[in-house]
């Protein structure tokens, strides 16, 4: 074993704990040395701490600088702040990295999809600046800043270069929102000059949506402001088979949190029924972030093999395996190949 990593584990609520246990089983069997530190987050914290995100959890993440997070749910119509949004704000996790890659076992009408979305995660209409400016008019401020736009573009180009990607497009609506999206695009173009080896361009968001469903293979990396990113990342997840296999990472200059983007499915809690793949592929992303490529590749290969055999897969991909049985099958596959 190589270097030991200390990682904050945030199981979340609903099906989160059983998913995270399955994922831990697989990651621990991959040969990587991780010390997991468990912390609370989500609805279950409300009674105990009066908040969805306790200070103790924040302090632990601040110490370890890397976390793997299970699904959480934000209560609708209450005054509680979303734990996810608060995490992004507290740690300034400005880059939401959402790969969308075809998984062979999931039959889709396309031959190739391999897109990495880089969604700006802290600005735009998500700055929480909303007012009822009269009794019949509401407004939300769309906040786009030069440094916020510049750093997400720079992050994306750097990631692309490090991972051998060839092309990055900026997605915008600068033909209409000339100031805000115009600034985002200007910053992207400025950054692009630093990376002459990577092809860059831009595309208007509505056209991008149409092109994605017509010919997704033409796209490599996309850089998007927050709102378009929110929508298009789910669109891309849908193209490759849904949120059940969609990984995600929220990354800042000092911290990275890896998480599935699906909900906590509370109605299935305790039934060990749900597919843990989204958190598992997020864990694979985390391993690569930790420079543990060999372990990441080992898990990925074993997971694809188990999915391909269809003997020990969960109900959503046509099987009857429980969450932990699927995870154990991946572990067995890794050991069989070793």
């Amino acid at each position, binding site marked *: 074993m190589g270097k030991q990593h200390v990682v904050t584990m945030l199981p979340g609520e609903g099906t989160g704990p059983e998913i995270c246990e399955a994922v831990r089983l697989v990651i621990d069997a991959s040969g990587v040395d991780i010390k997991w530190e468990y912390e609370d987050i989500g609805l279950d914290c409300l009674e105990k701490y009066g908040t969805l995100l306790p200070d103790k959890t*924040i302090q632990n993440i*601040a110490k370890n600088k890397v976390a793997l997070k299970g699904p959480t749910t934000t209560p609708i119509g209450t*005054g509680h*702040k979303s734990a996810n*949004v*608060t995490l992004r*704000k*507290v*740690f*300034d996790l*400005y880059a939401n990295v959402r790969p969308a890659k075809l998984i062979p076992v999931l039959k889709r009408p396309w031959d190739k999809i391999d897109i990495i979305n880089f969604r700006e995660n*802290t*600005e735009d209409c*998500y*700055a*929480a*600046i*909303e*007012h*009822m*400016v009269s*009794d*019949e008019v509401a407004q939300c401020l769309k*906040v786009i*800043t*030069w*440094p*916020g736009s510049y*750093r997400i573009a720079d992050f994306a180009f750097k990631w692309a270069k490090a991972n051998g990607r060839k092309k990055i497009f900026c997605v915008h609506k600068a033909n209409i929102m000339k100031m805000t999206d115009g600034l985002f695009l200007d910053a992207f173009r400025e950054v692009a000059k630093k990376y002459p080896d990577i092809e860059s361009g831009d595309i208007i968001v509505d056209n991008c949506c149409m092109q994605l469903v017509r010919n997704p293979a033409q796209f490599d990396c996309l850089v998007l402001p927050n709102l378009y990113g929110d929508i298009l990342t789910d669109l891309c997840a849908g193209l490759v088979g849904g949120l059940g296999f969609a990984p995600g990472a929220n990354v*800042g*200059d*000092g*911290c990275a949190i890896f998480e599935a983007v699906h909900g906590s499915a509370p109605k299935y809690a305790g039934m060990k029924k749900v597919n843990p793949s989204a958190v598992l592929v997020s864990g694979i992303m985390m391993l690569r972030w930790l420079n543990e490529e060999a372990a990441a590749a080992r898990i990925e290969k074993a997971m694809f093999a188990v999915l391909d055999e269809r003997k020990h897969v969960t109900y959503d991909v046509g099987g009857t395996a429980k969450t932990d049985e699927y995870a154990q099958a991946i572990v067995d596959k890794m050991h069989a190949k070793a």
Partner: protein
Amino acid sequence: MPTFTETAKATKKKKEIKLVGIDMYIITDKGIPKFDDIGPFKCEFISNRGTKVWPGFVSPDLLQVNWYRCRFMATKDVQDADVNTFLDALTKKGWWWSAAQKLWNYDGEAGFSKAY
């Protein structure tokens, strides 16, 4: 037969509107502003790009730009004229600001978002 627009306008309900504060958008390169109370208005929080930067914990990694939203809440019943006085006082103190947004309660409910 009324048009959809006419029907929509007819659904407007009368609401009781009460002035309760001001969001001030301050431009400064000197970091997070500090304010004493200004007349009947007290600074409750300051956010930057939507993230609260005062009071409380601020990540050293947090990107801050030179544009702060400073929320001043009224400590007693106030009128529009009090806002004019407040703006004059703020300007005389040397603060440069891009906009002011009055905060109202509508039928007792806040017509403005909280800060993260």
